[in-house]
């Protein structure tokens, strides 16, 4: 009687183990078919972090006063703290025409291309690099002598325009 009872316990345990192994195998097979579970979760996490960061930056941008924001002394404009400078840099995507025209003063070939191609900008970038905000743009087109050239002009973004909705690079110091 005692032996039969022990047999049943072993059988139940073996059955439970079998079911467990089956469930694990079942999900392993499903995972291998539909796959990328971990990868998808990692991607979703990155995206969530990106959205959270974007929201934080948007909140910060909307809290800034409208007008010119600078990183240097000697003006009546709003001066950014180091922390705000980095945040504004990371939130900024746009470089308006006057900032480009200003940087072109120190790059005659870029000016020529910009003028000859009808003020077309191929690409712009703003990035936080080695504790400074680097902004720049690329122009592609003909120089005055007709030769085609691609030039990238970049420098430290030292002032920004806050519109209340977004921020724009206002001064690229490329000298």
């Amino acid at each position: 009687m005692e032996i039969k009872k022990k047999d049943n316990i072993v059988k139940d345990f073996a059955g439970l183990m079998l079911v467990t192994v089956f469930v694990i195998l079942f999900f392993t097979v499903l995972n291998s078919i539909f796959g990328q579970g971990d990868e998808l979760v990692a991607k979703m996490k990155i995206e969530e972090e990106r959205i959270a960061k974007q929201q934080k930056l948007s909140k910060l941008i909307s809290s800034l006063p409208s007008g010119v924001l600078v990183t240097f002394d000697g003006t009546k404009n709003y001066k950014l703290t180091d922390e705000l400078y980095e945040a504004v840099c990371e939130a900024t995507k746009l470089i308006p025409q006057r900032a480009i025209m200003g940087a072109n003063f120190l790059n005659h070939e870029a000016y020529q291309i910009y003028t000859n191609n009808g003020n077309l900008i191929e690409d712009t970038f703003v990035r936080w690099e080695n504790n400074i905000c680097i902004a720049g743009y690329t122009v592609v087109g003909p120089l005055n002598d007709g030769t085609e050239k691609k030039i990238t002009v970049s420098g430290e973004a030292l002032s920004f325009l806050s519109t209340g909705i977004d921020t724009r690079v206002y001064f690229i110091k490329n000298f």
Partner: protein
Amino acid sequence: MKKYLILFFVFLLIPTLVEARSTGCKEGNCENGYGKWVYTDKTTYEGEWVNTQKHGTGLETWPNGYIYKGEFKNSEWNGKGTLTFPDGSMYEGEWVNGFMNGQGIFTWADGKIKSGTWKNGILIE
């Protein structure tokens, strides 16, 4: 419905009219003489005009902080003039077709100075 449509267009028109009134020749004579012109991006020029061109001496101020004070020819910076950059750096010297060309002195915001001959914005000697 028609009334609302008209109101909608009137509201669209108001900012355009306000913008139009705040730009253009605001003071004086901007054809031949002395006048102040305000551009749509808030760049201003106050100085001498000849045949609707900036010609003579004047002051041009950009909304992002660049200020040029000096001589103009055919609406371009030509002759002697001073350009102040938004951070306080400054070039004082000769200009040709909107570029530093000729003798000039460049003073950085931190006080560093370079003087010499400039060609199309670059110090050559």
